[in-house]
Every structure is written in structure tokens, then in C-alpha cells.
């Protein structure tokens, strides 16, 4: 298989300009600068590249939403807020291969006629930010970044902006609020950021991994990239696996990797060869899958058809000793803690869910509480400004309905029947 995004990972000095260049790095930038911006957007459309930040929106289509006129400046914002629990791919790209991201930013910014690009790094990303800063220094020195790039007349400035510990700022409009200096409270859409975004100007927001795909698309062509993956899902993806597996880590594979292969083959199987209880396929906002549900291909459409989501493709594996009530409680605590508090269903519902779950984990409550939990989730989903509410409601309902008997066992036993973690 072609390794694209991870080609230089693990090589000595793999993060440096010298190694990136010895693998053809910045060749795509030179090629792109000789193309028209429109031709670049066409290649990305042909690539069927879907956003890697979790929602899977077709990248080229999103770029097409920018207004045609250049009345206002336009911005590219790189989402490096990576906060979805279970996800650890963007940190790796920033630390191991920052030049691929930079080249992707440069080509994209040129294609979108952007003169300033922001990179929004989560506040905890000191090391990844340092690595990106060094790469920016190297690239500027070499003439790939700054004014009159490679003699093309095109100029780009990249500004790093650090968050300060708020998961919600990964949501694209909360992220814009945060760059503008406000608490991260998502904006109602429409208007969409492509029309009214950062400082009121047209803005495209893309995930780190999405942009890291762009150099290869330009170098090899959109059609070539598309053929690596699935019909409506081009290219390769960095899959993650963590939790109760023997070989946790990141593995690049074409879109459509089997979840079973990720867990049992790449991930090495379950620790101590215990039976599997559940897998969260792509970050905690995804509905968990049971052992008889893991023969699914990990692309956006197939995972949705399986009643869950591809999300960020960072799988969390849980063996039979894992308490599903405790996992649901931990996830609810996370969402309750991180809710921006703007919408009533999410602000109040997250706390209500958490209190019920904590009671059940302690063996208190009644079977009707399970119906109540589902009811609260149903009232949150679709009733909030941003998708955070759904990201809370869908998995919690999934734990309750798929592992109902385990919830009931807590009530019968008057406590948790599983060992401590």
C-alpha cells in the first residue's frame, strides 16, 4: 500500500525540511503555483477528499462555497484543536511531519486566494506547536513561505493561535469566536463561515489531516487519490486504536479498512487475549459497536449505515472486564464539563444525564431511569446550536440501549459488578 501521510514517520530527522524534501516535499507547491486556483479546486473535488475532522464533509465542495468576489479578505483556518477523546492523529502529524501540513496549507491558501492563514492549536499542544514553529522557520528561510513564494508573486502569512483548554473550540464556529478573543460559544448557522467567518470575512476551516492530504492530491492527481479509497471517500486515512489492545497506535490505510482488522490485526488483538466487549470506532461521540458488529468497513458512509460514525477514526477498544455504565458516566462527565452552556438542552441535559448515570453506577435508581436517559437524549439531539448536543446524546443513548442488561445488573446488585480500572 502507498503510505502517503506517514511516509516519513519514524525516519531519522523525519520532521525536518531536508528529509521532507528528499521525499519530494514542496514539489507539489511548485506545481500548484503554476496551476490556476480553479484547477486546484477541481483536483480536490475529483479526489473525493472528505474532511478528516470528524464530520466528513467533502472538502472540494466546501471550498466551492466561498463567494466568487474578492471584496473582503478571506481566511483559511486550520483546526489543530484535536480534543475528541480517543483521537491522536493531528498531534502526530504536527510533531512528525509538519512540512506536509505546511505544504497543504500553502497550496490550499493559494487555491482559495487567501493571504493570511490561522492555525488554531489546542493550548496543551506546546510540543506540536514548537515543531510547527520550527518548520515555519525552515520553510520561510527556503522561500516556500512569506512574500513572493518561489518567485510566483503569491504571498502568505501563517499565524499560530493557541487555545486554552476548551473542547468546544474544536467546533468550527466556536473556534472562530476564540480567535476573535471571545469564549468559545458556537454561532448559529447559517450564515456559514465560508460566507461570514473570521472577523466577518469568508473563511474555510479544515482539519490538520485534511490539509495534509492536499500535496499528494496535487502531485499525483485527484483521480489517483480517489482510487486509493472508496467510491465517495478518496485516499488513505490515519486510523488510531487505543485502550485494551496489544499494539495501540496510528496506522495508515486506504479508506474502508475493516474495523476487525484494525483491532485484531494492526492493533494486535485484545490484551491477555480476553474477549472483546465493545469498540468506540472514532472518538467518544460515536455510538459503541458490539463484538458482532465490528465487521464493518471504516469509511464515512458504511459507518453511518452501521448506526454509528467514522468520526475521527480513533478507535477505543474495551475488553469484557470493562463496565459500560462507568464508560458512559465518564463520557457524560466529559460533555457536562465541556458544554459551553449556551443551549438549555445541552447545558442542563448533560448534568441531568451525568447525575442519573452516577446513581446507576453506584447501584441506585430504577429501571425507569433508563427510559428517562433515552428521553433526555432524544430531547437534546437536534435541539442545539451546534453538533455538541448530538455528540453527547447519540453515544449515551447507544450505551443505554445496547447494554441495557448491564445497566439493570447494577440496579439488581446495588452496585457495580465490574473490577476497578
Amino acid at each position, binding site marked *: 500500500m502507498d503510505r502517503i501521510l506517514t511516509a516519513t514517520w519514524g525516519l531519522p530527522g523525519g520532521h525536518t525540511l531536508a528529509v521532507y524534501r528528499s521525499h519530494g516535499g514542496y514539489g507539489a507547491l511548485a506545481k500548484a503555483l503554476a496551476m490556476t486556483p480553479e484547477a486546484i479546486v477541481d483536483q480536490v473535488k475529483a479526489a473525493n477528499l472528505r474532511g478528516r475532522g470528524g464530520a466528513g464533509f467533502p472538502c472540494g465542495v466546501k471550498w466551492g462555497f466561498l463567494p466568487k468576489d474578492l471584496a473582503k479578505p478571506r481566511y483559511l483556518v486550520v483546526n489543530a484543536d484535536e480534543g475528541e477523546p480517543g483521537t491522536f492523529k493531528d498531534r502526530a502529524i504536527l510533531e512528525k511531519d509538519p512540512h506536509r501540513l505546511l505544504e497543504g496549507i500553502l497550496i490550499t491558501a493559494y487555491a482559495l486566494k487567501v493571504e493570511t492563514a490561522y492555525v488554531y492549536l489546542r493550548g496543551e499542544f506546546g510540543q506540536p506547536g514548537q515543531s510547527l514553529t520550527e518548520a515555519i522557520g525552515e520553510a520561510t528561510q527556503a522561500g516556500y513561505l512569506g512574500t513572493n513564494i518561489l518567485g510566483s508573486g503569491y504571498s502568505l502569512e501563517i499565524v499560530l493561535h493557541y487555545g486554552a483548554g476548551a473542547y468546544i473550540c474544536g467546533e468550527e464556529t466556536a473556534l472562530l469566536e476564540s480567535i476573535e478573543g471571545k469564549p468559545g460559544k458556537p454561532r448559529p448557522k447559517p450564515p456559514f463561515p465560508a460566507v461570514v467567518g473570521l472577523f466577518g470575512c469568508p473563511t474555510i476551516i479544515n482539519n490538520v489531516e485534511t490539509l495534509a492530504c492536499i500535496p499528494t492530491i496535487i502531485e499525483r492527481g485527484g483521480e489517483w487519490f480517489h482510487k486509493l479509497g472508496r467510491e465517495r471517500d478518496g485516499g488513505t486515512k490515519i486510523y488510531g486504536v487505543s*485502550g485494551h489492545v496489544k499494539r495501540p497506535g496510528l496506522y495508515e490505510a486506504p479508506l474502508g479498512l475493516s474495523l476487525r482488522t484494525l483491532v485484531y490485526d494492526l492493533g494486535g488483538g485484545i490484551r491477555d487475549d480476553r474477549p472483546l466487549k465493545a469498540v468506540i470506532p472514532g472518538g467518544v461521540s460515536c455510538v459503541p459497536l458490539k463484538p458482532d458488529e465490528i465487521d464493518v468497513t471504516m469509511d464515512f458512509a458504511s459507518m453511518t449505515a452501521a448506526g454509528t460514525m467514522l468520526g475521527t477514526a480513533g478507535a477505543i477498544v474495551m475488553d469484557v472486564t470493562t463496565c459500560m455504565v462507568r464508560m458512559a458516566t*465518564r463520557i457524560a462527565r466529559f460533555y457536562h464539563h465541556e458544554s459551553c452552556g449556551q443551549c438549555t438542552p445541552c447545558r442542563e441535559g448533560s448534568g441531568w444525564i451525568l447525575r442519573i448515570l452516577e446513581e446507576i453506577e453506584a447501584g441506585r435508581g430504577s429501571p425507569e431511569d433508563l427510559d428517562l436517559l433515552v428521553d433526555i437524549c432524544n430531547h437534546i439531539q437536534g435541539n442545539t446550536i451546534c453538533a455538541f448536543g448530538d455528540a453527547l446524546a447519540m453515544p449515551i443513548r447507544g450505551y443505554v440501549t445496547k447494554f441495557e442488561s448491564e445497566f439493570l445488573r447494577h440496579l439488581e446488585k446495588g452496585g457495580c459488578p465490574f473490577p476497578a480500572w
Partner: protein
Amino acid sequence: MCRDPLDPLPPFAFRDETEKELQQLLSRAPTPAAAILPALHLVQKEHGYISTAAMDYLAGRLAIPPSKVLADATFYEMYRCYPVGHYLIQVCTGPSCALLGADRILDHLADRLGIKPGQTTPDRLFTLGRTECLAACGSAPVITCNGQLYEEMSVEKVDQLLADWSAAAARQPGESEWTGS
């Protein structure tokens, strides 16, 4: 602002090099408000936490209402409105770390330090806390200390780290307060 009117604020000022960073920041920020988050990071880097005096000072320097600075300082988790110890240890209790023993590591650290999560040791050397997922789940369980990530932790490994940090502090007495990170 949450200030006691009977207790006048101590004057606040940056050290020279931080002042230079602030001036650079102000000259580049597209709007005054856009400088709040980076400016709060500067305050915390230099002082270890964000005091009411610092918030008032920043509001003046940025020419924005103090309430806006306060709103950000309290919305964003990483900003601390209270002083912390020389070493700020945070244990990730996100799902992947939790599955691999994060709670045991947190309990162990609390035991060893004789404090609860959220507290600081009386000698002001260590503050203990928890964090959500740090995007390092492949090497769980992880902790951070003053922003530095430590991966594949175990009770033995955190004991070793504690010993190293205590020894480093003993070599530099008087350093038992925040010196920045």
C-alpha cells in the same frame, strides 16, 4: 470584577522581555480583543496564574472592558485564577487512559503527595490535577508536568518522576514557586 474593594490591588507589571512580547502582540492583533487569549497566556507564563490585578491591567492595556478579560480567564480551563506549585502535575483521565489505569495513577500521586486533586502541597512544590484527553491515547496512560507530556506511565514511573523533580528542587532551593512554562 471579583475584587475586594477594601483590599487594593497590588500593582501589576510584566518583566521587560514579556512586555516586548505583549507590544508585538498588540501591534499585530487585528482587533484588541484578538489579543486577549495570547496576552493571558503571557501573564500565566510569567506569573503562574492570572490574578485580578493582572486582568485589570490587561483590560487597560488592550483598551477593552475588564469583563471581557474575566470572561475568557474563566471560560478557558487552562487559565488559572489561583497560584499553583512549582510543578503542576496533571493526570489524563480520558477514556483510553482511564481504561489503562489512570485512576490508580491519580490516587497514587494524591497519596504520595498527601493532597487531593486540585490541591497544592504545603511546601508549594507540587499541584495535582486531572485533565481530559490530551490526544496521546496511543501511549496511554499519560500525564503532563508543566506542559511536558510523559507517556506510558505506571505507578513505578511516576514515583521515579516525583523523585527526580524533588531532587531537582532540592538542588535549587528557593525555586519552590512557579517559574514559568
